[in-house]
């Protein structure tokens, strides 16, 4: 069902291992550059999997000016605040608000939403209790008695999953519909989907959607490695030698609003949201259906919502996390929908790593850049396509864009599969 309200993207922001803006991150993709290297976070000599796409040499003040926040929120939140702030600032929405009469500002803010996809499972938060545990051993009574003074009194507030929603609101004055989606890998892209849906349903007139995560921590890496999900060197999506994924960290955000509003204030339009599909395979925490059923259903739902036939899809930004099972089932899902006419496929985790909750929005931000330049960038680490997946239109070199639209795929634990369709900024050509 197509509603009359059209939703466009008027600002984007991003930070990850390859850069501090959508442009620098895009340039790295185009240049075949990756942020993946041996972690510098700890001495990892005994670790079989120890690669990461970390954000290095970036001062907290570069991310968030307010020093007070550096200690009162987590690093993942600083990334989220940075990306969301950039998307808001670049959309020009705050500058526009300043032109409004004072009495209109309150309702403007009440109609401005914040949707975040936030990473979870931060084991490191628990380590703040280690000094107390060392001190008190198995004596829980002492643990309770000596708590005060041994642990940061604001600990709970520091680790709130919804801190980005809270602080984007305080910093930018948005007070409308909001959610913090803690749905592991698909949290960020679902934030975009929910933001767009809120606007089409008149629950908000505009919203910033952000995905942020810092999945790279020793305990997470250790367990993922034991499950056979981590690569010892790099991410090679769809390659016969693919060996797993590599964590990245960072955030990405987009500002969404009503097309007419954006046009009326002369905003630059980066693209148009057309539709989203979201389903679960119901298989459990880490199981993936080999036949790609969940993902193909998500794609079909998204295309139907967008009113777009498969033949009108310009490119696919694959999840392409470089693991054997996910990549293979992703190709099967695409074949189920597109038959032997799959549009040109790219993927970005070889360059930026897997940002988990941040991954889908970063892929979307890069898809918008690809649509602007009308090019499907190559996957630099793809040397020999897995023959069992062939024919499959992924390539180490760039390919021409087929139409003015992109299908962005994102998957996560819990059998989650999402697909999102966007149109490029060139409104003179139909998707």
């Amino acid at each position: 069902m197509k509603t009359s309200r059209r939703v466009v993207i008027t600002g984007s922001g991003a930070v990850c291992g390859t850069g501090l803006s959508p442009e620098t991150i895009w340039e790295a993709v185009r240049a075949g550059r990756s942020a993946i290297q041996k972690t510098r976070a700890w001495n990892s000599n005994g670790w079989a999997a120890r690669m990461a796409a970390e954000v290095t040499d970036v001062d907290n003040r570069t991310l968030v000016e307010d020093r007070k926040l550096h200690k009162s929120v987590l690093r993942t939140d600083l990334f989220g605040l940075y990306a969301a702030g950039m998307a808001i600032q670049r959309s020009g929405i705050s500058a526009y608000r300043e032109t409004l009469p004072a009495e209109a500002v309150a309702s403007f803010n009440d109609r401005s939403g914040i949707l975040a996809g936030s990473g979870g499972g931060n084991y490191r938060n628990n380590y703040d209790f280690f000094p107390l545990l060392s001190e008190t051993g198995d004596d829980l009574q002492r643990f309770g008695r000596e708590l005060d003074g041994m642990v940061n009194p604001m600990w709970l507030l520091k680790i709130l999953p919804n801190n980005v929603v809270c602080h984007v609101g305080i910093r930018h004055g948005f007070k409308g519909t909001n959610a913090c989606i803690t749905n592991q890998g698909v949290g960020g892209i679902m934030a975009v989907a929910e933001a767009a849906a809120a606007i089409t349903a008149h629950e908000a007139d505009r919203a910033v959607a952000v995905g942020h995560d810092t999945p790279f921590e020793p305990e997470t890496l250790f367990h993922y490695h034991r499950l056979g999900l981590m690569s010892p060197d790099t991410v090679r999506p769809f390659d016969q030698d693919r060996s797993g994924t590599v964590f990245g960290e960072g955030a990405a955000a987009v500002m969404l609003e009503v097309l007419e509003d954006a046009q009326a204030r002369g905003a630059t339009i980066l693209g148009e949201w057309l539709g989203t599909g979201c389903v679960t395979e119901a298989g459990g925490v880490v199981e993936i259906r080999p036949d790609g059923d969940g993902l193909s259903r998500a794609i079909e739902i998204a295309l139907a919502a967008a009113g777009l036939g498969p033949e009108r899809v310009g490119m696919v930004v694959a999840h392409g996390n470089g693991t054997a099972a996910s990549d293979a089932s992703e190709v099967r899902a695409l074949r189920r929908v597109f038959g032997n006419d799959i549009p040109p496929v790219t993927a970005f985790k070889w360059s930026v790593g897997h940002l988990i909750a941040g991954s889908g929005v970063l892929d979307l931000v890069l898809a918008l850049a690809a649509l602007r330049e009308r090019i499907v960038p190559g996957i630099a680490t793809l040397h020999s396509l897995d023959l069992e997946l062939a024919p499959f239109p992924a390539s180490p070199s760039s390919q021409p864009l087929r139409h003015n639209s992109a299908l962005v795929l994102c998957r996560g634990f819990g059998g989650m599969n999402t697909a999102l369709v966007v149109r490029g900024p060139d409104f003179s050509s139909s998707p």
Partner: protein
Amino acid sequence: MNTRRRVAITGVGLVTPVGNDAPTTWANLLAGRSGISRIRGFDASGFPARIGGEVKGFDGPSEELDRKLLKFTLPSHRFALAAAEEALRDAGIRPEPATSRRWGLSVGAGMMCTTFEEVKTVHAHCGRQGEFDANGLVDGAFPADPVAFCRSQANTGLAVLTRQFGIQGYATSVHTACASGGQAVGTALKVMRRGQADFVLAGGYDSMLNPIGLSAFCLLGALSTDNDAPERASRPFDATRNGMVLAEGAGFMVLEDWEAARRRGASIYAELAGDGNSLSSYRITDSHPSGDGPIQSMRQALADAGLTPEEVDYVNAHGTSTLMNDRSECAALRGVLGDHITRVAVSSTKSCMGHLIAAAGAVEAVVCALAIRDGMAPVNANHGRPDPECAINLVREKSKPMDIRAALSNSLGFGGSNSTLAFRRPQGVP
């Protein structure tokens, strides 16, 4: 927008400190019985607050459930499985192969993903000196447990619930602190209206009643330390209140298309009629004294439901029993209800159950559905001395029989997220 889909609540399930199913919980809430007692799940005797709303005598979800799956669950997930199973049984409808893709799931999930025992194991191998040493994980002695890892993912609850019940459609897991459960139910309503699902299992689950969760709230000074009078410790809107009481549990409801529910002859508790969702954008824990924030969420919920303040007969307040929340929420109620403030019955069932955090909004949504069905406003227990700043029409001393045409449920979270849900009596649905 008047072609908009109407959404019926056709099944409910609860696991709470006052009962391990909805009928028991409801009977105890109506009787004003407290579920707050000395914490027995672990030795809390050294903590400043040693009382809580524990789930008692819970044997885990019923026999029909997949026992293997239970390995992958935290206590809060087991509460969720039991409450969800009850809701589905109560509704008399559940996902079948032919309908599973049209079933959705929307949950407010607790933020704590690891058990205290697991934290202690990591401490023993990697943190004996007090600092975390990553290399303790790879020295060969650390017991790598993939099941414990699966248990500790942010969306493990979603994974377990969708697998157990075969839900294959839209699925989401949200967390906005104490607003989580309300926002999850609100999201479910939107998913139904958008046509992304024809049935949604919606709810919330949480348990922070473990040494680290209790520590977190003690450190903030948010908890009542009335350790010698646990049953009276949670007394929302009372002049002597001195903090909230931490509790645990789960609440779930089955939502389905109004017409479809009618056609199959389902018994309908209430219409889930509207959702309001706002952000205070004020301070992280403080609420604005004027009620700004909750005012918007309540107004939105009313407008969304097509209700006027005149039609509201009952409000299940957030009512945490902290000075700041209670006063600010009363200011918001005054702002929205205006002159009707003297007529609309208000109670906080946290007075009996304590604060179920991410589950609270979903549990209280179920309470509103039951209140409408039975024409009973549950009592705000433990209210002795009125706070002049909280001049509202509180349901005092005992639960009150009354026709409830429409009800609101507020859930206001740390971080400033506010959720208000609006419910309408089935007979009143146009």
